[in-house]
């Protein structure tokens, strides 16, 4: 029953048109700052704006902090639950589910309500607000990272590895850092890239915590400068591409090595 997959090709073509037409449209738009001319001026304008550099650096830093926080929060917990407290699993899953059920806008609403007034008024200081931003982003990234790590842990024999390490005299820190984390490298890294892609241009939470972040900056540019805003779109999309590309490369590399530790 061999058929010429004409219909399949047509469907695929529609899909790819949907992908690419808006991208081509955006790219085209971003190159037309000067009338009747193809120019990179919009990109130059954006990249040389101090506010772009500042907000981007800020969001980049926050993304890195979020990744570190999420990994430190999720990986040891997931490992520990696997090893010692399997009965806790439903509770952990309930928490990760909660991050889906409470949309970002509702989460930030609640955070403001709790942390903008005594007794926990940490939003008043910059440091407190930055901390809260990282925590909120960690909440957003929690479910993805947990899934990723959980799958990673299922693929390795946690108990045997732990006992082997313990019998060689390793403490918990050593076990986590030198035995478990290296085995979860692919899971952690892909979780990290997804987190980065989610957080770098995040708008809602950053807006309401009044942070000088990249997302609100982009929205701001969009209101006044259409060409620059499309240039920003292309830049931010390239970042997403880079992240997803990195995950795909990781996934490919992972197939061969499961038990290899260290570098």
């Amino acid at each position, binding site marked *: *029953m061999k058929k010429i997959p004409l219909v*399949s090709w047509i469907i695929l073509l529609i899909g790819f048109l949907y992908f690419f037409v808006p991208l081509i449209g955006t790219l085209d738009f971003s190159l037309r700052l000067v009338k009747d001319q193809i120019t990179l001026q919009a990109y130059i304008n954006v990249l040389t704006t101090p506010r772009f550099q500042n907000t981007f650096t800020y969001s980049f830093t926050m993304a890195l902090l979020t990744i570190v926080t999420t990994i430190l929060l999720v990986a040891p917990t997931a490992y520990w639950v696997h090893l010692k407290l399997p009965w806790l699993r439903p509770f952990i899953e309930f928490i990760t589910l909660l991050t889906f059920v409470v949309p970002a806008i509702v989460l930030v609403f609640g955070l403001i309500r709790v942390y903008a007034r005594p007794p926990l008024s940490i939003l008043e200081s910059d440091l407190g607000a930055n901390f809260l931003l990282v925590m909120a982003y960690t909440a957003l990234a929690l479910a993805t990272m947990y899934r990723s790590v959980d799958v990673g842990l299922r693929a390795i024999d946690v108990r045997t590895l732990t006992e082997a390490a313990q019998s*060689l005299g390793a403490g918990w820190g050593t076990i986590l850092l030198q035995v478990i984390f290296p085995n979860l490298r692919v899971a952690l890294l892909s979780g990290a890239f997804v987190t980065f892609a989610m957080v770098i241009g995040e708008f809602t939470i950053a807006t309401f915590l009044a942070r000088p972040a990249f997302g609100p900056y982009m929205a701001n540019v969009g209101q006044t400068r259409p060409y620059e805003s499309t240039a920003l779109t292309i830049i931010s999309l390239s970042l997403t591409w880079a992240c997803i590309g990195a995950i795909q490369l990781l996934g490919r590399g992972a197939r061969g090595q499961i038990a290899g530790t260290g570098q």
Partner: protein
Amino acid sequence: MQTTLPRVRTRNWSLAWVGVVPFFAFAFFFLILPAGTLLIGSVQDKQGNFTLDNFRNMFQGISLNVLAVPSEANLFGLTIPLPFTVDFELNSIISAYILSIQLSVSTALIGGVLGFLLAYAVVLGGLPRFARSALLTFSGVASYFSGVPLAFAFIATLGRLGFVTTLIRNYVGFDLYQTGFSVLSLTGLILTYTYFQFPLMVLIITPALDGLKREWREAAENLGASDAQYWRHVAFPILLPSLLGTMILLFSNAFGAVATPYALTGGNFQLATILIFRQIRGEVLQDPGLGYAVALGMVFVMALSLTLYYWLQRRSERWLKR
């Protein structure tokens, strides 16, 4: 080789819970406490006394009458005659919810169908292997392409001076905007959301299609089933829970979106999320308790859809366990 502290293995199970304290502390302070505060705020009046008025006020000024007078309904541009007339009045909150649900359901359906067809085409449609990996890569990127940049992309493409609008105007001699189309309308939002909805469908449903076992098809064929019969009686019933489940996921994905509609319409489009957005800014409602109730309404819709999702997930695992 690492030879740190030779550690005595203590079998102190009673202290094992200490290891999960950070996680639960985090969950308490940054998820449960904020959500709980909204919950408490929603059942308090301005003096802090318990009340259910906030929820009652959400539905204030609503009336719904069904009259025995024939009328017509407009569904996706199709005019459908109805044997009755629905006469209703809504308030701004309920209209915002209805608009949000309308948008989320349409994009879940459109994205779901398109995504399924694409996944079907690359898994079972006889396309070469590279089509599959290309589709999955693009879907991976596009499903994360949302928020402010996505809104800009669609303005640049379908806006009044957008790429496609101009292209059609110059080469087909037809002005999209003459037809009443606008990228800032519900149709525009649906088209924009679909951009991240169908790739998500592709990503989730492709493994499910992979899970359809060759043996099932062979068994069906041996029993004399046609292609259509196989799909109707075997493949489709097996896939149905995952299809519905994924569409529910798409629904909640769209329902919670803020940045995309905000950047696209500048907050003029009254969705539930935009209503909360403006409430936090102090632009609407003027009643904090009501604001909390509206926020909780969103949590309620999300919880409802995810419960349904998990139930369907369990059903689909019966056959598609991998």
